[in-house]
């Protein structure tokens, strides 16, 4: 109580200083007079009495100072005075301050922006209740598409039984359906979930309720929970939607609630529904088929269980599973299950890229800080005189250090302030980058954690900067003052430090440049990869009309279901044909093709394929090509070159013999060195039973060249095309080729599609150039970011070299003058300074190349078509840095050469 009271009184004392000073003066004056009166009463002469009284007081000014220290908060007032003084000093050297603040702002801004992404995507706790106990399991195998093959229901069942550490396991499977609106339909991504899904996930509703175990199984009403994002985007956040019925893939579904914002994985989801919506998910095949893997698994650790326990239990269960079902888990394909935290799974794709960017930003900050340190050092030398004077007036080393710290704090905090400005504008760009890598991009924010990071960074920088400009030792001041010195110099040490900083700057710049070079070359390589298409002037309109749904329900007649499907398919094909003809009539259109899939995009339909007379080797997995359909004009409209045989013809109709066209990759796989045309292939495998695709033999009539369907950096996949007319219209994509500027056709073509199929979901209207661009865009952004970081670094480093040399020249003006008057010509002086810079440059280059060699190895996963130790890049980077460095050395060298000995000697 007493201390609180005293503290409050002292804080109050800060603000009542003036009045209290008057009071104190009067009080002490009274004291003095009373004492004087007393001395007079004892018989002293008035003057003597006053003198004695003053002597007894011990000095009024010192006493007032002592009282003032007791009164307020001397420490805080000292800091305020320091800051005030620092601001004044910095105002007096505006050039220095501006350069430092800008340099720091760039460094701090870059780091703040990148850190906000790292924090939002990788570090921040998940919004889920006890999110760190959520576990994601992933089954994978060797071979294309084997990265995540998800689980089958029987597999999940065994984990549930055999791994008690996974206290609760929820299942969900990504699915999509057409949501019928009043005017138009849209295709939405839906997660089909078990009733316990939200309970396991630890998510709460913002409206209505979420699914629960009573929503499981057959014969229950279909219910759907909207994700927060979809609810706000599509329904405008209308709370009236809860309780309403909507039509999803022709089924009536009740919207029961809206779930709080959360990241969805592995794909984005717009709604989560119970399994009853898709009869397929309740079918025997789904429930009993061990190889029918469509289910993702999310688990919550049992209380007191650890991730390690879960890992070993899962491994044990999985090993037993593989022993019991040897035919299902082909040993050659290395089936495996990874157990990781959900948070780790969410950040997996973004991790490498983000740490790369964070590293690049950190390097920029190191270079900026080194530059500022150098500037501070130089300024420190010029200020030595001032510091000596201050020391002479009684400032101790501690006091001077505090003053320097105040100055540096003002600089770094100003830098941080401008840096935040840079970060705010950068975060939006970075969020769009992060969206490609992480489902958590929407969580990126300049929040309190990020601000704290920025603040901590500024304070640490200020502390470091205050200690590089080492002050002379306490004792040495006295000597310097006594000698009347204008300078105290620890010059050699400082010189070494400055040079070390320049070497570090060059080295770090080289590392950044190398990274930027590798990423840029990766990007160039990527865009050089041929898409496989002959032209980019192609517009694609993805408009699926057929609603296949999940297949026949349990207990219904599959044949009846299939007949109904065929009827609607026939109607739909008429409409596609009408669209095709009308778009073909638009001016400028050369050709319109029709097929199931967008060129340069992967397709989800894949089945096992066999070739007539070709037996698989033992242990060899059958190929699972992409299944696509195309009409006769599709290949020429999309610009897919025909390598052999013929394209489809109008005669390849419903009633004629089944034919197929395969791509080069598949031809090489099945018929190496043979002519594939005329051979026969057929779809096969357990999954086929459940699709409307027939297993009959199909004759290959043509081979087309490969296209980059999995993105520019992916190896081409095997593909089988079947005539659009011979199969169900499982997808519908119009491919429009025009003579020029095909993008201009988009509006007109979309209008035609809208008119003919008013309720159809138009998935995307994109030109081939745009599709190609989308697959390169993330890499381009990577390369652009790292490149701009490295350019920034190089500029700062160049300024650093030039600055240090210029300083060295100005410090050595006298020496150079003497040298010149003793006969050194200007060329020689120039060489001397160049040599001085050259040594630093060579040191930095050597260190940098070595460092880049190490760092580049970590980047391997981000590169394409170029090795991490690509000699061309490394040589190019070294030459570029050397060239810039030499230019930076030349400027001060020229200045040194122009020194007039006559003038310098006179000084």
């Amino acid at each position, binding site marked *: 109580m*007493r201390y609180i*009271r*005293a503290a409050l*009184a*002292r804080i109050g*004392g800060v603000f009542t200083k003036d009045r209290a000073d008057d*009071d*104190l003066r*009067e*009080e*002490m004056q*009274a*004291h003095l*007079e*009373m*004492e004087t*009166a*007393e001395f007079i009463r004892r018989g002293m002469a008035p003057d003597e009495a006053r003198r004695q009284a003053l002597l*007894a*007081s*011990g*000095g*009024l000014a*010192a*006493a007032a*100072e*002592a*009282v003032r*220290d*007791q*009164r307020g908060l001397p420490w805080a007032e000292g800091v305020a005075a320091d800051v005030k003084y620092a601001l004044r000093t910095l105002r007096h050297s505006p050039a220095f301050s501006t350069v430092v603040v800008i340099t720091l702002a760039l460094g701090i801004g870059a780091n703040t922006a990148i850190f906000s992404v790292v924090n939002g995507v990788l570090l921040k706790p998940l919004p889920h209740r006890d999110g760190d106990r959520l576990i994601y399991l992933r089954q994978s195998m060797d071979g294309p598409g084997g990265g995540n093959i998800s689980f089958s229901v029987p597999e999940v069942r065994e984990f549930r039984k055999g791994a008690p550490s996974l206290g609760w396991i929820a299942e969900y499977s990504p699915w999509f359906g057409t949501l019928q609106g009043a005017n138009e339909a849209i295709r939405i991504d839906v997660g089909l979930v078990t009733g316990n899904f939200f309970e396991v996930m630890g998510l709460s509703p913002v409206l209505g309720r979420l699914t629960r175990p009573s929503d499981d199984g057959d014969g229950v009403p279909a219910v759907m929970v909207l994700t927060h994002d979809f609810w706000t985007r599509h329904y405008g956040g209308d709370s009236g939607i809860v309780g309403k019925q909507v039509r999803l893939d022709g089924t009536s579904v009740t919207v029961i609630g809206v779930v709080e914002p959360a990241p969805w994985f592995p794909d984005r989801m717009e709604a989560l529904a119970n399994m009853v919506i898709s009869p397929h998910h309740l079918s025997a095949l789904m429930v009993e088929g061990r190889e029918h893997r469509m289910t993702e698994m999310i688990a919550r650790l049992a209380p007191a269980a650890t991730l390690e326990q879960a890992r070993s239990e899962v491994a044990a269960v999985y090993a037993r599973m593989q022993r019991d079902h040897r035919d299902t888990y082909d040993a050659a394909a290395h089936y495996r299950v990874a157990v990781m935290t959900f948070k780790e799974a969410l950040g997996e794709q973004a991790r490498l890229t983000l740490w790369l960017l964070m590293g690049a930003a950190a390097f920029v900050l190191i270079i900026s800080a080194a530059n500022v340190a150098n500037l501070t050092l130089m300024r420190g030398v010029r200020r030595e005189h001032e510091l000596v004077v201050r020391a002479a007036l009684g400032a101790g080393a501690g006091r001077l250090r505090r003053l320097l710290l105040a100055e540096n704090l003002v600089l770094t905090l100003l830098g941080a302030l401008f840096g935040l400005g840079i970060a705010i504008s950068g975060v939006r760009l970075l969020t769009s980058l992060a969206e490609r890598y992480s489902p958590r991009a929407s969580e990126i924010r300049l929040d309190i954690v990020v601000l704290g990071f920025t603040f901590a960074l500024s304070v640490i920088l200020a502390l470091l900067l205050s200690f590089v400009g080492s002050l002379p030792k306490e004792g040495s001041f006295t000597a310097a003052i006594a000698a009347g010195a204008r300078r105290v110099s620890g010059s050699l040490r400082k010189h070494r430090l400055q040079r070390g900083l320049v070497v570090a700057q060059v080295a770090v710049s080289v590392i950044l440049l190398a990274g930027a070079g590798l990423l840029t070359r990766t990007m160039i390589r990527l865009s050089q990869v041929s898409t496989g298409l002959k032209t980019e002037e192609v517009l694609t309109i993805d408009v699926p009309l057929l609603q296949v749904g999940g297949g026949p329900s349990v207990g219904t007649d599959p044949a009846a279901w299939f007949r109904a499907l065929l009827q609607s398919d026939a109607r739909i094909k008429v409409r596609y044909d009408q669209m095709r003809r009308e778009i073909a009539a638009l001016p400028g259109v050369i050709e319109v093709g029709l097929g199931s899939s967008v060129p340069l995009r992967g397709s989800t339909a894949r089945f096992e394929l066999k070739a007539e007379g070709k037996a698989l080797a033992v242990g060899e997995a059958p190929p699972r090509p992409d299944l696509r359909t195309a009409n006769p004009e599709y290949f020429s409209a999309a610009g897919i070159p025909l390598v052999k045989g013929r394209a489809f013809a109008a005669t390849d109709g419903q009633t004629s013999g089944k034919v197929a066209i395969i791509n080069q990759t598949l031809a090489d796989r099945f018929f190496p060195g043979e002519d594939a045309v005329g051979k026969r292939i057929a779809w096969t495998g357990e999954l086929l039973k459940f699709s409307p695709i027939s297993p009959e033999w199909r004759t290959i009539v043509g081979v087309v060249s490969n296209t980059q369907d999995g993105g520019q950096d992916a190896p081409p996949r095997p593909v089988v095309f079947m005539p659009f007319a011979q199969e169900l219209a499982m997808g519908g994509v119009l491919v429009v080729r025009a003579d020029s500027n095909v993008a201009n056709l988009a509006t007109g073509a979309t209008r035609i599609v809208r008119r003919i199929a008013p309720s159809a979901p138009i998935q995307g209207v994109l030109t081939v150039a745009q599709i190609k661009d989308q697959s390169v865009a993330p890499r381009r952004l990577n390369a652009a970011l790292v490149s701009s970081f490295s350019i920034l670094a190089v500029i700062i480093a160049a300024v650093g070299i030039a600055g240090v040399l210029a300083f060295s020249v100005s410090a050595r003006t006298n020496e150079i003058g003497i040298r010149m008057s003793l006969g050194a010509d200007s060329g020689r002086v120039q060489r001397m300074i160049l040599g001085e810079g050259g040594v630093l440059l060579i040191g930095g280059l050597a260190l940098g190349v070595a460092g880049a060699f190490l760092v580049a190895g970590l980047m391997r996963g981000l590169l394409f078509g170029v090795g991490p130790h690509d000699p061309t890049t490394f040589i190019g980077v070294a030459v570029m840095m050397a060239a810039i460095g030499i230019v930076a050395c030349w400027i001060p060298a020229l200045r040194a050469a122009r020194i007039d000995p006559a003038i310098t000697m006179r000084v």
Partner: protein
Amino acid sequence: MAEKRDVKQGTLALMILRTLDVLGTLHGYGIARRIEETSKNRLSLNYGTLYPALLKLEQEGFIKAEWRQSENNRRAKFYALTAAGRKQLARETREWHETADLIAAFLAPRKEVP
């Protein structure tokens, strides 16, 4: 002239409180005189020691100050004990006695150990 001792840290507060307890309301000069007299002029109390100590006691709420006319009609700041100050005086006095006893026991002439 004999060297006068400076007041030991911590004891001055106790002396001030005791002085005000005995003499009632008093100004700074009076307090200083009284302490010096009580110490038989062995202590010297300059302003730089006295006034910060007074301010500290005031901040802690043990004494309160007000401006009044002094005996020779001059405006002076008079200090008086508060209730809290009285309690503090009792506490500090007790503690001081205890400490003094303790130290006395330590410094007592050694008895021969048989």
